[in-house]
């Protein structure tokens, strides 16, 4: 019902917005390339005989975290203004989930 989300900018802004968009496009392409690269590395880490599972599993998890951050910040615009609350909730959820799992792994052991 609310229609207050997007107020069309006046014409004078067009130039500025073009530049902004171009910049953003560049970021997206760079991070997209990086993501594909990271995926390739992940495949490589699993395929390469020299790495034991003790290295490759945590390593892939780390790559996954990086990918999630790319996804959130460059493709879902979390770096833009006005996303503080979603960020707060995401990090809140991450902390709660992390502490819970951490408790299981360190003190509870089910």
């Amino acid at each position: 019902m609310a229609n207050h989300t997007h107020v069309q900018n006046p014409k004078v802004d067009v130039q500025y917005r073009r530049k902004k968009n171009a910049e953003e496009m560049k970021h997206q392409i760079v991070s997209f390339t990086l993501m594909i690269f990271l995926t390739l590395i992940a495949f490589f880490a699993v395929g390469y005989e020299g790495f034991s599972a003790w290295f490759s599993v945590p390593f892939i998890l780390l790559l996954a975290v990086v990918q999630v951050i790319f996804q959130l910040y460059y493709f879902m615009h979390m770096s833009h203004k006005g996303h503080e609350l979603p960020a707060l909730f995401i990090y809140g959820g991450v902390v709660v989930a992390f502490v819970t799992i951490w408790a299981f792994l360190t003190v509870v052991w089910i």
Partner: protein
Amino acid sequence: MSTLARKKGVGAVIWDYLTTVDHKKIAILYLIAGGVFFLLGGLEAMIIRIQLAVPNNDFISAGFYNEVLTMHGTTMIFLAAMPLVFAMMNAVVPIQIGARDVAFPFLNSLGFWLFFFGGVFLNLSWFLGGAPDAGWTSYASLSLASPTHGIDFYVLGLQISGLGTLIGGINFLVTIINMRAPGMTYMRMPMFTWATFVTSALILFAFPPLTVGLIFMMMDRLFGGNFFDPALGGNTIIWEHLFWIFGHPEVYILVLPAFGIFSEIFATFSRKRLFGYSSMVFATVLIGFLGFMVWAHHMFTVGMGPIANAIFAVATMAIAVPTGIKIFNWLFTMWGGSIRFTTPMMYAVAFIPSFVIGGVTGVMNATAAADYQYHDSYFVVAHFHYVIVGGVVFALLAGAHYWWPKMFGKMLDEKLGKVTFWLFFIGFHLTFFIQHFLGLMGMPRRVFTFLPGQGFETGNMISTVGAFFMAAGTVVLLANVVITTVKGKRVGNDPWEDGRTLEWAVSSPAPEYNFAQTPLVRGLDAYWIEKMEGKKGLTPAEPLGDIHMPNPSILPFVISLGLFVSAFGFLFHQDHAWGTPVGVFGLIITLGAMFFRSIIDDHGFHIHKEEVMEAEKKGAGA
């Protein structure tokens, strides 16, 4: 198009409520449905207490006792306390923040109907082979062995109603983040709105573990899974963890709104600004956060080992600190105020010592070593009833009296209100205080009778007498509601005369669109500020204009009905050939209704400026 002030037949009223997306009407639906389930849970409590009045009683059988006990706990928590909290939130929060409705009115209605059908489904177990009987916690080692379909009703019913709760919580989060009136900064939000905000966040994080646990249990019981069966390689303790990762935040989901309600009442009837507002906000957020770190205090005797027990004990005790902050803030709010002992204020004042007792026994329970003595005894029953009844139920009763005029336009009778209060207050302490000692003397919890000559007779008799006092209080309350509805006089905007927050600036009940003009909020206690400057109404933040409203819709009802039908099918799919087809059919109803919701373009309608002006002239008491 608008439905303002028009007389309607019974059928039209029912249709109106089935299709409504108005938060004020949904509040009434929650109040009625939650109220009925509260009476049902109360009836079950009375059966329990009658059975336990004397030793070796055979009022009901052992097996039936287990069913009544389980349904009492489950009903009270999921079908009475939760929806009544949602009733208060729906009735008040949108108006308190100066909004015209919640962010997603359609989802609001969907949340209600999911809860409703889940609750009805759970209770139909009484007629379809037996109710669940493994306690409200439904520990897997018990519930997997339960021979009837009771547990399946529990699993599917709670799954459906839990979905409704989750939807409701998300809706309030978005509403409070996005729909605040101009000037209503976070640190100007009324305390009840803050409590609703934190509670909704807890719902968002706490309900998914329950959902997962219920799915596992459903797999194990209905679809041949073995998550919890050790004989097949499962682990029965996983259920306990999942349940309590949800269950402990759940108690804060209930009690934080209670704190919010009391904060409003203390400030209003002390005619003072809430003492230490920012520390109250801080304490609420901190309690919400810490609430996720303590679930294993319910499992000290499971055998997690001394390190885990010690850590969870300390984490639990830490919560006493922000809670203590709140208690002192309420006391200091009253200090030096010009106090009026209205019915809501009496509940508020009585809440403090009652809740403190519950808090103290809570810290006692948290002392892991000592808990080996208290665990599964009546001491625990006394503890959680002190926080749940002394905190949550007192708050709901107080809130009902406080906001009744805002919801229905008529004041509940104060004399009868006080009679209810005293009966309930005395009955509550009679029932539960003695149970501390019964527990310390060794009376186990969840046992259908006790033997003579062990010293339990007097205590149990006193406890049962107390329960009858509470029942009497409830009857007086019902009479009060009927009398008020029939004979009560219409009241104006601010019937308590000391209202501080925005809901008291609009007529009682509020018009469909809440505010003819969105108000400009100039501080905490926005309405009080305007009153102190000698103004009658709020400062508007926009010119008078057409108001856009959402259309009513029957689809939420149909979506929920589909899940209800589906649950029946899958519940019986192992016994009857029609089970699976009915289950699938129900899902088709649900998905079909969702499909229609997606393709129908629904733009809502407008209430025109002239209609608004006319309604304001007629409706506003001021």
